[in-house]
């Protein structure tokens, strides 16, 4: 479904991604784990078109995405829950969700999806009219996920969705991720919380300073000694 081939990304002189390649297949949950500054967020931003690779190719459902403007890529069915949430703090919760469905025209369907999202995140329904900037961290994370779901994506990119969330919510969020996945959305998940990520993922890749150093089935990686030491804190 999504294929990344030898992608290089630079921030000025900084070579942030040094030729990474990986794939995400239809229906999978794939996770990218790695320490701070490894380039996880950079990978996601490159896929969603916010960054331009200097070299390499990105293909989605056979179509070349490289060079396509970010707003078009959303239309192709990829949506992103960015690191740090990036909700529209000056708009209300409802308006944020509306923005998620910006490219959609199927009004009744949108309405249904909104209900579905309120069912997943009841807190959002409670805070419908609140200006999003005053939500607590966790509420904002829920909003960011809800907003991304509103575009009805085929592939959802999640950047550290568990950051700053309470243990219960972390669990819930991962349950939701599994749910969303079960309902047919493919997921590419970036996480610091490798333990959780590996427990829900089908496959996983390890990213270290801009390079993919390991890749395989999530369970295998979770069992590997190196990974346990470096990322699972065991």
């Amino acid at each position, binding site marked *: 479904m999504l294929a990344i081939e030898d992608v290089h990304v630079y921030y000025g002189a900084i070579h942030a991604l040094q030729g990474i390649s990986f794939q995400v297949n239809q229906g999978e949950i794939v996770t990218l784990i790695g320490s701070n*500054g490894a380039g996880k967020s950079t990978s996601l931003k490159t896929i969603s078109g916010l960054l331009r690779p200097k070299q390499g190719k990105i293909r989605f459902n056979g179509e070349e995405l490289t060079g396509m403007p970010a707003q078009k890529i959303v239309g192709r069915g990829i949506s992103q829950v960015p690191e740090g949430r990036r909700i529209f703090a000056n708009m209300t919760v409802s308006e944020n969700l509306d923005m998620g469905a910006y490219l959609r025209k199927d009004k009744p369907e949108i309405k249904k999806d909104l209900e579905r999202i309120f069912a997943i995140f009841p807190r959002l329904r409670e805070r419908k009219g609140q200006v999003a900037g*005053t939500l607590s961290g966790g509420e904002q994370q829920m909003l960011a996920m809800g907003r991304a779901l509103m575009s009805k994506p085929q592939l959802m990119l999640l950047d550290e969705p568990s950051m700053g969330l309470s*243990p219960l919510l972390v669990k819930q969020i991962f349950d939701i991720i599994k749910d969303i996945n079960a309902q047919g959305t493919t997921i590419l998940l970036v996480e610091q919380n490798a333990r959780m990520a590996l427990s829900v993922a089908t496959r996983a890749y390890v990213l270290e300073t801009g390079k993919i150093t390991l890749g395989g089935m999530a369970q295998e990686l979770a069992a590997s000694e190196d990974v346990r030491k470096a990322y699972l*804190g065991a």
Partner: protein
Amino acid sequence: MLLKLEHLSKSFGGLKAVADLNIEIGQGELVGLIGPNGAGKTTVFNLLTGVYEPSEGKMIFAGKDVGGLRPYQVTHRGIARTFQNIRLFGDLSVIDNVKIAFHQHAKYSAFSAILRLPSFFRSEDEMESKALALLEVFHLRGRAGEVAKNLPYGEQRRLEIARAMATEPRLLLLDEPAAGMNPQETRGLMELIRWLRDNFQLTILLIEHDMSLVMGVCERIYVLDYGMIIASGTPEEIRTDPKVIEAYLGEEAI
């Protein structure tokens, strides 16, 4: 008691973010404040540090009411904090970040600075060496000249704590210090927190969602939900408290 919060409340419009809160913390204690997202934890910090004014209630620190003070005055009284979303002076060097926090202890006036009187040089030298010593403690000495925003995330978190320490507080408030850290870094942070408390006779109140850290270092924990305390006690008690499990930890306790 170093800190006593009595019937502390804060509402935003109709929303009661903090409701009739009572907390007591003794000198030298290391206390955790946990609770679901939106429970009002950060709001408690904001009240304590003068960012928000309480709607009701009292905050007694070291025997004196700190309600209604401006943030800098609270800092002068001996309360320092870090922020949930890092707020370093991003474009300044690491050492300048720390020196700024020494400001209240500088011993010369703007006038002496302009005239470059001897007191200026004396005090500047002193601040420089104190800042370097502090950076040493936080393993940041080698980074002293770097621009703060270029540091890796984990080091930025540490610098924020170092900077807060430079105000020479009696009470340190840490808001999710481990957020965005990997397990290894978190372990390092745990040691650092313990070490700080022991070496500076510091009292620490920390907010954190990473249970390994909270359970690992805190002696006592308050659990907040909807602005109210739903439980308090030792990590052991909290871990097994059914209310806490239901509201916060989730079924399979860690």
